């Protein structure tokens, strides 16, 4: 128990150090990029004096270390800064966009769980049969290898050209009611979930196949249990940890902003916000967005680690789950 607590505390400290590292990295990265906010907002026609005045107005002429500690101080006081471009608190801007990305994530996850896991179980159970193995390989191979920007562009083109009745090119008025919102998010969520379905199907299939060769499965078969009962009570329980781990990772990844899909479908979410902020060298926006995404990822990973160690105490001792 003490060892487990010590291990959990170590994971929390490790997560905090990682977050600190991320904050330094992103702060330095946006400032090391060529071009600055003045280059974008003032354009090429501005004089050096105008650029200098604007940089001074936003404190961009101060030493980097001072700027960093000023930003970190703001973060600890709950202030994520103010967008240079919109002059709006970044927290307000994030508040408007995070629900959009979260909703997109939920819809994509629902599709992933509804399609990917049953497909993985089916192909895993039928791994010995030609049909199941082939379908599993084709689906996961295609889904993992087709880039989102290719699939997204094809979907936009096909659905708008064939007028299939699903909104593709319209501005996504997310929050305009359940119907319009789902309609706006359906295609992007499908595009987003293709990779996730493939990955979860493959992981589920491998996990199921690993469990199926365990002696207790042979014992269950010998006891005359039905295949469905064996899958539900013996296979899924034991294959659950890797599947849950993958789903948690996917969730954290999607919540961090589905940049490409949001851009292609013009969804005003976190990913497109981050890209726009980067293009305009809106430092406060980029720093806060990346830090948020990193925090989500690290916190989800941490929670998953803690749950896994609680379910399987060997994790805290050996650092990996037992089989």
């Amino acid at each position, binding site marked *: 128990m003490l060892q487990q607590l010590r291990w959990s505390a170590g994971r929390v400290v490790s997560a905090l150090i990682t977050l600190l590292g991320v904050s330094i990295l992103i702060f330095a990265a946006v400032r090391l990029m060529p*071009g*600055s906010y003045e280059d974008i907002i003032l354009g090429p026609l501005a004089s050096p004096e105008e650029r200098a005045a604007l940089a001074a107005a936003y404190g961009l002429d101060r030493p980097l270390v001072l700027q960093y500690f000023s930003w970190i101080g703001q973060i600890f006081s709950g202030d994520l800064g103010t967008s240079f471009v919109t002059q709006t608190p970044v927290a307000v801007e994030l508040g408007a966009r995070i629900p959009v990305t979260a909703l997109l994530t939920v819809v994509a996850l629902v599709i992933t769980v509804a399609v990917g896991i049953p497909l993985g179980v089916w192909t895993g159970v039928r791994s010995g049969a030609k049909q199941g193995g082939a379908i599993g390989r084709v689906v996961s191979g295609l889904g993992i290898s087709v880039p989102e920007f290719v699939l997204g562009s094809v979907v936009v083109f096909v659905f708008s050209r064939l007028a299939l009745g699903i909104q593709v090119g319209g501005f996504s008025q997310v929050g305009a009611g359940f119907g319009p919102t789902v309609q706006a998010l359906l295609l992007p969520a499908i595009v987003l979930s293709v990779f996730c379905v493939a990955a979860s199907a493959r992981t589920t299939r491998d996990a199921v196949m690993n469990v199926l060769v365990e002696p207790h499965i042979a014992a269950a078969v010998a006891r005359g249990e039905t295949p469905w009962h064996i899958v539900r009570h013996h296979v899924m329980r034991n294959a659950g940890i890797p599947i849950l781990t993958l789903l948690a990772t996917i969730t954290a990844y999607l919540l961090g902003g589905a940049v490409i899909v949001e851009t292609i*479908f013009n969804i005003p979410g976190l990913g497109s916000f981050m890209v*726009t902020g980067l293009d305009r*060298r809106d430092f406060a926006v980029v720093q806060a967005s990346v830090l948020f995404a990193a925090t989500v990822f690290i916190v989800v990973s941490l929670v998953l680690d803690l749950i896994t160690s609680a379910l399987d105490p060997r994790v805290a001792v050996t650092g990996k789950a037992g089989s």
Partner: protein
Amino acid sequence: MLKLPRKRARVASGAALALGLACVLSSCAAPSGTGAGEQEEAAPGFLAVADDALDGQGALTVQLDYDTSEADGLDPATAQTARSWSIMGLVYETLVTADENFEITPELATSWEQPDDTTYVFTIDTTATFSNGRALTVDDVVGSLQRQVDSMSVWSGQMGPVESIEATGDDQVTVRLSSPYAPFLAALANTPAAILPMQEVEDGSLDLTTTMLGTGPYTVDAHRQDESWTFSANPNWRGGDDLAVQTLELQIVDQETTRQAALREGSAGLANFGSIDALTQLADAGDVRVVNQTQSDFYYVNVNSQVEGSPLQDQDVRFAINTAIDRQAIADIVFAGESAPTGVTPSNLPGACAVDALPSEQASLDDARQVIEDSGAAGTTLDMIVYTSEPVMGQIAQLVQQQLAEIGVTVNIEQFDTATYNARVFTAQPGDFDLSLGWFAGYVDPSMVTKWWNPEQAGFNVGFTGVHEDLNELITAGAEATDPDERATVLADLCATADEYSEIVPLVHRPSIIGYDSAELSPTIQSNEGYGDIFRDITAYRLPAASE
């Protein structure tokens, strides 16, 4: 100096092949029968004319690209980009405007007189009101113009040598210049010279950087930067309260394919496109009509003469590069014939210089090759930088790369985002590049854009161009000449001189493709546009009654 008046021979097949491959990969294709020169006009000077028989009123959704910036602030006086001019022009009006022939016509000034070359007397429409209900006064006009002149903004340089602005009657404003300045009215015709509610500005009740309040046909209901605008018809507009488009939803949609999809499926009534591919890709899209509006805007290549030790410090080398660049091939291959070459003065403006007469068009490729060999620049590798937000830049760069290879110059293309590009081209001193691609707004008077060839006036090009007194004198003379014949001669000399210095080399016009759903909207669209104003004729649009 390389000046050999020989017919140039061009072997563009290799370049065409390479670009053809690029086009296959990027889906560009030659539109059939929709070339800018082949388009049928609905009326002289118009690609589309609104059907007056339609009497509906309602909402219109427009999707626009991000362009260089969605709108750079809310104060029209400091607006630098065409997108800002278009959006702010919905709310603000100017004293005069430009028609389909680039002639200056009345707007808030009902008429004007010019008693001599340097004096303009405007009669103001004092029946006009701001959207808060207050009547326009001559003080608003005087204050607005004075504010612009004093602002030291980019546009204040285009206003010319303004000496005084004063109210000379209840409805009369007189502007005096210190010397003749031909494009003065043209400068007044663009949004940065908008007439502002100066009474409210001066009493502090209005901050122009956060609130838009004008005499124009629309008022702002909502705005989310880089996402959307919602405008409503201004009931106090002097043109009447019967506008067909009562509500305008303007959406900023970065992806070209997404805007196409919106037009196809009917979620947008009008959209703009930067790529000529839209002409073919939307050709079979039901009621969607697509037109190619000729802009005075044009692409150019900067040839950096200011880096110590660079072969580009040699004017002959720069001219050889200029000679090797085939503008017509760029128009034909990259833009599938939907664009046209231009010199320093935009070729679609009245009085512009002839491109064929430029020294670089008269010189031959063999001579250019010889100059490169003699100068020791053969085998030189030049870095050409472009920005990624306008994909056609990469295609132009590829073709220029092919063209320069013909004279033994290797070009290494580098693509960056806009901030990096601006930092390397405009902020770095000297500019951190050899060649770079960009585009200029061409405006409505041929002498206006020529100022950008004078680094003492432009400022932004100090890092890559030198100061040339003869060219600067021609630029000044071009702006001062009011006699058409004299002006044409000066501008021809100006174009030739800038062409010989070869530091900013004009290429071809920048097309503007506009698509609209003809079942939902009957727009008026001019064949030519100088200020990139996609909403220039929005008050003339008509909607079918069903959209009420």
